[in-house]
Structure formats: C-alpha cells, structure tokens
C-alpha cells in the first residue's frame, strides 16, 4: 500500500467537527429526555393503566420498535408534506427520534416501575402524597436505580444513532464529516478522526451518567 495518510488537512477542520459533535449531543439529549417523558407515561400506562391505556401503549411500542428509526423519520419527512405538514430536517429527525426513544424507554422504564415496592407507594399515599408526588419522590428514584445500566446504554445508542440525521442534511458530527470528506477527498482520515470523537463522546457520556447515578440515586455504577 502506498497511500500516505494526511491528517493535517482534517485536523484543520477540527473546530468544525467539534461543533458537529455538540449538535450530536444536543440531538441525543433532546431525544433522550423527550423519549423519557413519553416512556414514563407509557410505562405507567402499561403497569397501572386501564384496558384502553394499556392497549394504546402496547400498540405504540409494537409499532415503533418493529420498524427502523430511519424509516420512521423518512415517513415524517416525506409523507407528512402530502398531508400539508412540512417539517425542517432537524424537526423531523427530532420528532422521529423522540417517538422512537419513547417506545424503547417505555419498555425499559416498565421494568423499573415493576421494581417499585407496593408497600412504599401505599406508605406515601397514607402520608398524603398526591399521585404526582408519589411518582416524583418514591417511584422515579427506584426506577432510575433499577434501570440505570440499560438507560446508560440506550443513551450511548442515541449518541451514535443520531448520525442518521446526516441523511437528511442535518449538520451534526457525521453530516459535517461527509461535507469535509467530499471537499478534501480524505475520507479515511476524516472518518478515523470522527470515530475517535464518537468514542470520546460516548466515554464521557457513560462516565458522567455513572457519576450522576452515584450522586443522585446511590447506584453503585462503575465510572469506567
């Protein structure tokens, strides 16, 4: 092989790529928290809901976890305009990922909801807590503690999975990498560096999630 690596040209673009990494994290955070809200209601509906609520939650999860996220976003982006709804690429990506994350998080959170001891919920009720306060002060901490590991993994998946936004022209990390490599024709170098940035992002994400878990929920999570 007589290919000479030239990283210098790519490193010049590092600030541009790091800017993309910030967008990547933003997409991951937004989808994670949006999905977590949907997932919490979905999980509560599945465990404590009536027949109708349970059916709706189950249908939603089945539909969204059995189709690729990419296909869901394509539908939002290309099919909705026919119904008169035009979405920006970023909006379509965010809505798609939030709905998708919501379905997976419903299942993850359900395991957590099931881990809450009924006796603690009853004790909270007899102290006069409202339903919302019971969720907030008694159930969520248990849920968070039980599902910490799958939740962290899922966040990492979202950081990586958000790269599909590039297909819609969103300039996050992968999108910017494509821009650079089409201009400088140094694909190997560009994507090597991008891969390294992804690793740094996910390692930082996992480590900070573990720290948050230790601090907030007394989870004995490994930081590394």
């Amino acid at each position: 092989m007589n290919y000479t690596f030239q990283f210098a040209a790519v490193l010049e673009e590092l600030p541009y790529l790091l800017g993309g990494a910030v967008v990547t994290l933003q997409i991951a955070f937004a989808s994670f928290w949006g999905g977590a809200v949907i997932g919490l209601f979905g999980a509560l509906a599945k465990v404590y809901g009536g027949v109708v609520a349970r059916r709706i939650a189950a249908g939603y999860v089945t539909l969204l976890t059995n189709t690729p996220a990419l296909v869901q976003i394509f539908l939002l982006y290309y099919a909705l305009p026919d119904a008169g709804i035009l979405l920006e690429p970023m909006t379509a990506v965010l809505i798609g990922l939030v709905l998708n994350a919501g379905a997976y998080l419903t299942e993850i959170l359900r395991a957590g909801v099931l881990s809450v001891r009924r006796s603690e919920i009853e004790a909270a009720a007899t102290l006069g807590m409202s339903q919302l306060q019971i969720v907030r002060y008694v159930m969520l901490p248990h849920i968070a503690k039980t599902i910490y590991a799958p939740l962290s993994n899922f966040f990492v998946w979202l950081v990586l999975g958000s790269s599909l936004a590039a297909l819609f022209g969103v300039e996050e990390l992968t999108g910017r990498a494509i821009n650079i490599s089409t201009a400088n024709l140094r694909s190997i170098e560009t994507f090597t560096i991008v891969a390294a940035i992804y690793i740094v992002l996910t390692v930082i994400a996992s480590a900070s999630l573990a720290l948050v878990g230790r601090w907030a929920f007394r989870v004995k999570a490994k930081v590394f």
Partner: protein
Amino acid sequence: MHHLEIRNISSSYGKLEVLRDVTLSADKGEVVSLIGPSGSGKSTLLRVLIGLTPPTGGNVYIGGNKVDYNSRKSLKDLRGHMAIVFQQYNLFQNMNVLRNVTIAPVKIKKKPREEAEVRARGLLQKVGMEEKADAYPDELSGGQQQRVAIARALATSPEILLLDEVTSALDPERVKEVLDTIRSLTHEGITLIIVSHEMAFVREVSTRVAMMDQGKIVEVGPPEQIFRSPVESRTRDFVSKILSH
C-alpha cells in the same frame, strides 16, 4: 359524638366479605386495641380507615365530619389527621432517615425545611434514633426501621395513629424497644388504634380492647373484661388459647 366513629363498615375483596357491619368508636387520646385470629379482618379495618381499601358500606366520622373515601380532597384531609405504621416497616429506601421523616411536612404541609428538620430530629430523639439521622433504611435493623417509621408517621402530627402489628416482624429483643416507643405515645392525646398479638402489652396500655372474628367485632370492653371475664365464648377461647402460649 366520639372523636373517631366507625359505623357499620363493610368491605370485600371481590366476593370475599372481609368486614361485616363493623361499628367501633374511640375518644380523643384513647388507646383501642384490636385482637383476634389471623384473617379476622384487623388489617383490613385499618386499611379502610386510612383509605387504602374502599369500604362497601357504612361511614367513618372524625371529629364529627364524615369521611368521603371517594373524594381525593377528603382523603388528603383525612391523611392530615390520621397516620398508619405497617407491620413491614416500609420506609422510602432511596431517602435517608431524616428525609423519610421530613418529606411529608416539607412536601405536603409545605413547612420550611429547617423547621421540619428541627422537629424531625426531636421526633427521632423521642424514638431513640437521632444518631441515625443520616443513615439509609438498608443500613438499619428491623426495630430501628420500625422506630423511624413511627417518627415518620408522627411528623404529620396525626390526631389518630393506626399501628398494625408493628412488632411482629421483629426479633424478640427488638420488640421491647418498639413497644417502649409506643408506650411513650399513650399519654400525648393521640388516639391510638393498635393491632397486636402482644397480649401483655395490649392489656397494659389499652383503654379498651375489641375482639374481632370473621370480619365482625365480637366484643368490646376494658382490658380487665376482655382478658379476665369475657362475656362472649369466642373471646374466651381466643384469649385462653393465646395466653397459654
């Protein structure tokens, strides 16, 4: 009218009738104990009183006001006057002792945190747990957890406190410390409804004792009557059996 009036309360789990026409009252500061065989409905009666199990008939009055168990507002109101401690000390595992005791005053009664903490430390001292204020429930023995649970219930300043077999999950040497704690509550004007199998204790602290069997109250009277000269043969059988243990 009495401070707490239970009138013709019935309750069922599905088709199983667990309480039938239970009528019982307690004056302010009274200590009324419920005794009776396993499955006679003692726990269910306490659960109905605090609104965890719906009654199928009858009414409960507190201070002359009827409790509406179907209304959230009425339930919240009720739980501002009444608290319960269960057999299985169900402390909030994710909170330390101090937070377990302050959560209701701070989040429900909207007391300032400092004020609630000062009061909580006082209550913890009362139950002999002030040194464990920062410990988490899983770091405490059963007896210690149960004493914290009592402090947590007292933190809501209940006029009526329900205690459901609070010592029966404990080792014998832990029972005494919890009974001592309860004994210290009997002269504070709190109305206590106690379910217990500790007959010597029931006899010592109760102003009245109610004997339950198959969802009904068979006999109510002062402890001397129930333990020495019961009127009903069912009470006599139960008491002689349990005292001969």
